[in-house]
């Protein structure tokens, strides 16, 4: 795990060095600060997506949840004049409700996660567009929410964006949850072999459902940052394809879509690399139409290279283990020849 993360970290450094060399503006405070903001926006829900992927599932509905929750968030603030703090909590709760619906359908109704969340993707966006009459949801002119603005858009000492700080906090908490707690162990166990986990007394359905709920909560939290960042929601495009950023970050970070593998550090590094690539496209004057192509290419090469490395390492360990065995107890065959 650690070696994998280290490899990704080095890749990030190399890409950053190349970009910095080709365009020194990369290192300017404003650029780094903006990129960090993007990393925060996209990183928060990527960790949730990673949790679901570790159980062997997937959540395709994240982007549509942004549209739906964003519309509801603005509605709460503008139409219903709900206090912003309560609205934020309601967004997290809303994400958790959607997550628990997914979890219920996957664990109790035995539906496939791909199907469940694909339907979610279609339904949530459709509902969001219906609510706004296929228009925009925006804040009334001149109406401001100073505290909310400060929380979501300000920068710590004018440098570190609060989105990034929120992301870091989420990463630390979720890192502890995944890698240190009993629940984290269960999550991996369920992803590796659900049946064996059940035979070991783990309530596998509850663990899997919890992963979807966590993903929903983080999506709800991220939706607040997203909405504030864009300063409004156009439900037909808001958050389109964003689930793919989450999946890509998780996969780059070492999560296997078969489940049972992954780390929060990996997902964090994956999110950073993705945004770095976006930045690279902008700074190096690559046509922005190639944006996705660059990202896809790097993910492909990255995952391919990593798997080849794992294969090589597996082979090398097998060899070492064999040598060790021979040392400990030379086989009868070897003795005979001596």
């Amino acid at each position, binding site marked *: 795990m650690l070696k994998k993360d280290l490899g990704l970290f080095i890749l990030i450094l190399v890409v950053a060095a190349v970009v910095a060399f080709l365009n020194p503006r990369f290192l300017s405070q404003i650029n780094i600060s903006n990129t960090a903001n993007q990393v925060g926006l996209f990183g928060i829900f990527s960790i949730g997506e990673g949790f679901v992927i570790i159980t062997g599932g997937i959540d395709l509905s994240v982007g549509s949840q942004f549209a739906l929750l964003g519309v509801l968030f603005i509605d709460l603030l503008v139409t219903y004049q709900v206090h912003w703090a309560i609205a934020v909590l309601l967004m997290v709760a809303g994400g958790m409700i959607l997550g628990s619906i997914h979890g219920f359908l996957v664990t109790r109704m035995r539906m496939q996660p791909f199907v469940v969340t694909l339907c979610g993707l279609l339904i949530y966006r459709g509902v969001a567009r219906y609510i706004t009459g296929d228009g925009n949801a925006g804040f009334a002119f001149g109406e401001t929410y100073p505290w909310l603005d400060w929380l979501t858009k300000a920068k710590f000492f004018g440098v570190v964006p609060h989105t990034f700080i929120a992301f870091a906090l989420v990463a630390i908490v979720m890192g502890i949850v995944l890698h240190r707690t009993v629940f984290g*162990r269960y999550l991996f166990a369920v992803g590796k072999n659900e049946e064996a986990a059940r035979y070991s007394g783990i309530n596998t359905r509850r663990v899997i459902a919890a992963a979807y709920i966590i993903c929903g909560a983080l999506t709800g939290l991220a939706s607040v940052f997203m909405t504030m960042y864009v300063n409004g929601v156009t439900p037909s495009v808001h958050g389109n394809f964003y689930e793919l950023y989450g999946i890509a970050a998780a996969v780059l970070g070492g999560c296997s879509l078969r489940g049972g593998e992954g780390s929060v550090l990996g997902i964090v590094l994956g999110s950073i690399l993705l945004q770095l690539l976006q930045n690279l496209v902008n700074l190096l004057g690559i046509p922005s139409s190639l944006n996705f192509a660059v990202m896809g290419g790097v993910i492909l090469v990255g995952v391919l290279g990593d798997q080849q490395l794992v294969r090589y390492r597996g082979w090398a360990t097998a*060899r070492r283990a*064999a040598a060790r065995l021979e040392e400990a107890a030379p086989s*009868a*065959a070897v003795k005979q020849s001596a």
Partner: protein
Amino acid sequence: MGDPDSSLRSIEEIDPTLPDAAPFLELVSISKTYPGVVALRDVGLFVAPGEVIGLIGENGAGKSTLMRVLGGVVAPTKGMIRIDGAESASLTVNEATAAGIAFVHQELNLFDNLDVAANVFIGREPLWGGPLKLVDRKAMYGRVRPLLDRLDVDFRPETPVSELSIAQQQLLEIAKALSFDARLVIMDEPTSSLTLTETSRLLEVVAALKTSGVSVIFISHRLNEIEQCADRVVVLRDGCTVGALDRRQIHHDAMIRLMIGRDLKSLYAPPAAPPGSTMLDIEAMRTSTYPADPVSLSVRKGEILGLAGLIGSGRTELARAVFGIDHPRAGAIRLEGQPIVVGSPRDAIDRGIYLIPEDRKRSGLLLDVSITENISLPDLASYSHATLVQESAETANAELQRRRLRIKVPDVGDQVSTLSGGNQQKVVLAKWLSMRPRVIIFDEPTRGVDVGSKSEIYEIMRELADAGVAILMISSDMEEVIGVSDRIAVMREGRISGFLDRGDFSEHNVLKLAVGSTIN
């Protein structure tokens, strides 16, 4: 490997005089080395037409590698293969098939979405329609029928494979082998998931193959089967041929001695004391597989109750219900007289009722996770403070279990998948021995486990029983049921058909209850 035991003769001393025919296939001093491992060293083997060879050895002795060489999957590093006088250094898969070598694998390689005939001819279907390459279904079914007749099976070419039992699938594999005009059929642990009757049926088929001139290499850990069917036994240990036994020399003890290179302590130890009070009471339990058949049985402290019966007789279903995997239709469980409700495996585990499942790779282990994490999984709460897992406590316990159960592994941080079957089973055991067992249900405890580990597992079972644990052992291995149990319950079609006490133990009695024949 000069074992100074006069009753054993090394392979050189045995005059390879053969019944009627000269060998058509010979392997001469085959060696195979992998980086750092000698898998085979100077192994020789010959096969005469119509000969049944029992190939035995502990797991890792080199049986599979040798068979892979025969099948053309692995090229030997050294040595020579002679088929009908033609010599070559190695075979390809196609050459092996052309020479009439066919496999019946331990893990069946069938397509259960296709029917019997389609499986036999998979990849070489008779065609018509020229360039359209349509499958000639009529020819296919017509050609499969005589093959099935030859084996006298009770299914038809049109039967979907999904409707076949494991035993029938095995026969289908044999039919498939015959369709290649096989001269040598290699069976790798063919009986490991068969019931007694199915096993004797398979042994009949082996005998029939033999009379029709087809040779068989029969690999099995079940030595009584080897005794029944083999003309000659070849024993491998640590990649070398350590001996061969001809028909008259084949018996149990000789085979074990050659396999492990020493005398095995008596496999089965008697109980230290008579069993105590009742630990587990199952009352009128009805599983969803057999909703009309209530099962009642009880196991006492210190007792090993063997649960015999055919596969599908409802034994595993009963175990799953007691352990909380399935919800029974009705019935009650009492533990030391106290009624308990088991709604999930967690409920069972919390009360000290543990299950060692029949398929350890599927249900018992996380294969690519460390031994340590596998052992602590059911009891993580005990290794954690404020829900944070303390890895040092886990590792300490894993080390303890490794020494106690003699799990052969350099490092408890290694993945379980690197272990042999026997050692994997010990890891499953270690999970439960780290806790406080009151009842342990063993479902086929030694399936796919080599003789050495087998005796160790029996020893552990007896130790547990002597320490007051009640043990329910489901087993389809007759030797095991009779050897290990203090009392035997036999199930038939969802019901308990009878109990046997030590004095009445015999294969005959168990079988009679299992199949329900009313002889006398």
